[in-house]
């Protein structure tokens, strides 16, 4: 059986930072397992930037960054974790800068910073509109430098633990199709988000299917704040592909069919740079009230207008956005406004972890978007996700190094391997009454209807019923491809089954959270209710397969909840 001191699952920003941290300690055996080659990871799709109170453009401080983050979270973030992240931000930015990350620069050679939504100052460090891409490349380069071992194109199937300590994972080598148990003293999950639940309209990569999150759920461990899913205000009309908040940070306008900058009615002060949950609701309201546009395919949208920024600025700061708009919408933003609409984007909820990434199982960590620490609470601010992944990737790597140096391997129950083999075998022999593409699309429609930008009790309850029905019907999915080598039919089926597991954990707490907070907006309870709901939701799956909901207090240090106005 393969065996490592530390196994990192996922090779995006969090996974690679954890790997770098562990590679500094000589003599440890560490591997990074990923279902894609490292630089394919979705960190690379992050465009606009990463927040840190460097104060290079305007005076700033980690305290102000923390306050903005807590306020942006609608006071659901754990403030000790937020303070830690914001305090570490300037140093970790410089650390990556010292690794060669090609940040855009000010004339005096220092790192440039741009304004972003919900931030009081220009605080977002960036590399044009490809910040995540260059960050991922830089971290990968450093991992090569440090000789990190990669298991590329391996797919996580399950997490093995004995109720107290982690023993390792079961995973499939996609190239050979073989299923392996991998023993490890510590496992760091850095498997990314799950917004692919909203399959038909999301900014996420095809593989952001919450594989780690679903495995944690199946392993009987808690997920936190799953009802909170961020819809990014500006996805491209047809595809939902991301148009960075940096486009508005650089001065872009949102325009309705009356030609108005409608944000003046929703956030008169911050306008287009209000937090994402507010801007997304504003766009949807404009469309609902008949002030949107409609194309002949029936797509509804508003315009993101960058024309007044001028050719030079667009080419220099937003070159990739221009390409995407040309390639995917046939629109050159220098000449025409870009048609946009909100798109499912970010999972605030995830694996319940503390501020060192620790889960209730010793040796099992979670970092990055798959984790809920929580630093984003009910709504994440733009530029804080890249920061979250590197800070908590680093911290969980550090803590794992300390943990494994004092501990041995836990016994590995090999029947877990057999169980996964059987689960997969059954997919080949099912009756095939249901089709993957149809179910995937149905799940997406149900989730958008019941757990989208606007929510209410009746629709959510219908959605829960429907998700449970889809879960039953999914038992009839069949894998038709009988080959072992790179069986993408099998992989896509397994990914969908993960999405179905996750969908239920989003809707259940959403029904019970009878208030509006951040991205969770209920038309039947439009006000925030701190008295009853200033708390994290926890979902676990019991032995009987039923979900159980409980609550956990929010950590408040110095920022008392107040009304959120922008």
């Amino acid at each position, binding site marked *: 059986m393969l065996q490592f001191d530390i196994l990192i699952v996922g090779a995006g920003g969090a996974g690679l930072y954890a790997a770098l941290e562990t590679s500094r300690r000589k003599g440890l055996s560490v591997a990074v397992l990923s279902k894609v080659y490292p630089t394919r990871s979705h960190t690379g*799709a992050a465009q606009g930037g990463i927040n840190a109170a460097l104060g290079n453009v305007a005076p700033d401080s980690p305290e102000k960054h923390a306050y903005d983050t807590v306020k942006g979270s609608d006071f659901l973030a754990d403030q000790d974790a937020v303070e830690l992240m914001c305090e570490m931000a300037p140093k970790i930015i410089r650390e990556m800068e010292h690794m060669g990350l090609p940040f855009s620069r000010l004339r005096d050679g220092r790192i440039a910073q741009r304004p972003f939504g919900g931030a009081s100052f220009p605080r977002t460090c960036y590399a044009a509109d490809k910040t995540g891409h260059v960050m991922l490349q830089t971290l990968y380069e450093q991992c090569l430098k440090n000789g990190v071992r990669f298991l590329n194109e391996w797919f996580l199937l399950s997490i093995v633990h004995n109720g107290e300590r982690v023993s390792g994972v079961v995973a499939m080598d996609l190239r050979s199709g073989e299923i392996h148990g991998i023993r490890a003293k510590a496992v760091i999950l850095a498997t990314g988000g799950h917004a692919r639940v909203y399959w038909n309209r999301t900014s996420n*990569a095809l593989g952001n299917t919450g594989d780690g999150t679903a495995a944690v759920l199946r392993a009987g461990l808690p997920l936190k704040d799953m009802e909170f899913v961020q819809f990014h205000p500006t996805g491209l009309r047809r595809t939902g592909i991301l148009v960075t908040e940096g486009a508005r940070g650089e001065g872009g306008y949102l325009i309705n069919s009356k030609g108005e900058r409608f944000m003046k009615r929703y956030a008169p002060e911050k306008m287009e740079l209000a937090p994402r949950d507010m801007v997304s609701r504003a766009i949807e309201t404009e469309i609902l009230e008949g002030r949107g546009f409609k194309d002949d395919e029936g797509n509804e949208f508003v315009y993101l207008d960058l024309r007044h920024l001028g050719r030079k600025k667009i080419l220099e700061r937003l070159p990739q956005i221009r390409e995407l708009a040309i390639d995917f919408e046939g629109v050159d933003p220098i000449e025409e406004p870009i048609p946009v609409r909100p798109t499912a984007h970010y999972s605030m909820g995830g694996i319940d972890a503390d501020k060192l990434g620790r889960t209730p199982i010793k040796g099992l960590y979670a970092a990055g978007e798959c984790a809920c620490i929580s630093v984003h609470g009910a709504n994440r601010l733009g530029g804080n996700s890249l920061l979250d992944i590197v800070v908590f990737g680093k911290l969980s790597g550090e803590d794992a190094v300390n943990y494994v140096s004092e501990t041995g391997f836990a016994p590995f129950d090999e029947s877990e391997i057999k169980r996964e083999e059987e689960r997969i075998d059954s997919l080949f022999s099912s009756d095939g009454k249901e089709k993957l593409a149809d179910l995937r699309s149905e799940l997406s429609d149900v989730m958008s209807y019941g757990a989208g930008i606007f929510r209410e009790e009746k629709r959510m309850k219908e959605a829960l019923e429907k998700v449970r029905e889809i879960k039953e019907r999914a038992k009839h999915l069949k894998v038709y491809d009988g*080959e072992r080598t790179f069986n993408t039919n099998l992989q896509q089926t397994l990914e969908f089954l993960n999405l179905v597991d996750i969908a239920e954990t989003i809707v259940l707490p959403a029904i019970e959270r009878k208030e509006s907070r951040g991205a969770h907006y209920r038309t039947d309870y439009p006000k925030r209710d701190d008295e009853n709901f200033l708390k994290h939701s926890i979902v676990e799956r019991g032995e009987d397969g039923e979900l159980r909901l409980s609550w956990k207090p929010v950590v408040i240090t110095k920022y008392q909840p107040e009304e959120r106005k922008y």
Partner: protein
Amino acid sequence: MEKREVLFRIKRFNPKKDEKPYYREYRLTVPKGMTVLEALQQIKDTQDPTLAFRAFCRSAICGSCAVKVNGFPKLACKTQVFNELDKFGTDTLTLEPLDNMEVIRDLIVDWDRPLKRMEEMKPYLVPDPEVVPRTLDEESRVYPNELKKFDSFTDCILCTSCFSSCTATQLDENYGGPFQLARVYRFAVDPRDALKAERSKIGYAFDMWNCVRCNRCADVCPKHVSPVDGIMKLRGLSIEVGLKDNPGARHVMAFYKSLLESGMLNEVLLPLRTKGIKGVLENLPVGIKMILKGKAHSPVMKPIAEHETLIKVMKAAMEVE
């Protein structure tokens, strides 16, 4: 909305099972705007679940889905079916795996060889203690004009399109490869790097002089990177650090000298200056034919009109670089 009936010819191969690759045909009704990747997924969803291809971000940043579309490497996710049909004046698209790499299955190729190659070429910053601060209390200063020198090369998404169409890669086992050499250059001109121009020695060791400047790497790059530009500049750096005594450097210097002397390329002296007597002997049969056909010029050439101006232009160009 406009729709077209399209025939997709897709190259299939499972080395574990098939003796040799074969083509399978799929017919699909394609609406305007549909990408090659969406078409592939639709074929997989509705006609043939066994079709194997890679895809991830579907927004042209992860580099997973590069395949050959009618012979040219493309990111399937950002390539619209109609555009390709119109370009080729056809209703058929042939989809094949990238070249220069082994096929794992259907459109999926083995990236390990090109990535391993890059790994051997120090593709990471080695910080210069003179520039990169020792503590995390400060950042290094990089001025916008310095960033400009290497910024475009950081756009590379490792999709291996350039590698797949590189002619030098086909012929020379030891050749570094376009995206790999371009990354060597990217660090060679990063002011934070300790190795700086010395990195060109890595390029030299990996046969950068074997690039034939066919420009295919730049033509096919979906991110508009021009690896060949990086390779040419890396060659220049190698001459600066003293790697002059080799055919490649001598060839370039011979061009340069010719231009300084006359403003014209002296093709008679070129083989001698590049490869010495051996070069002359090698080129003798061609040379004799040229003389017989009256195509050869005298080894002594008269400077062109306005030679002085040309020299000024050359000097100015050197300063800019």
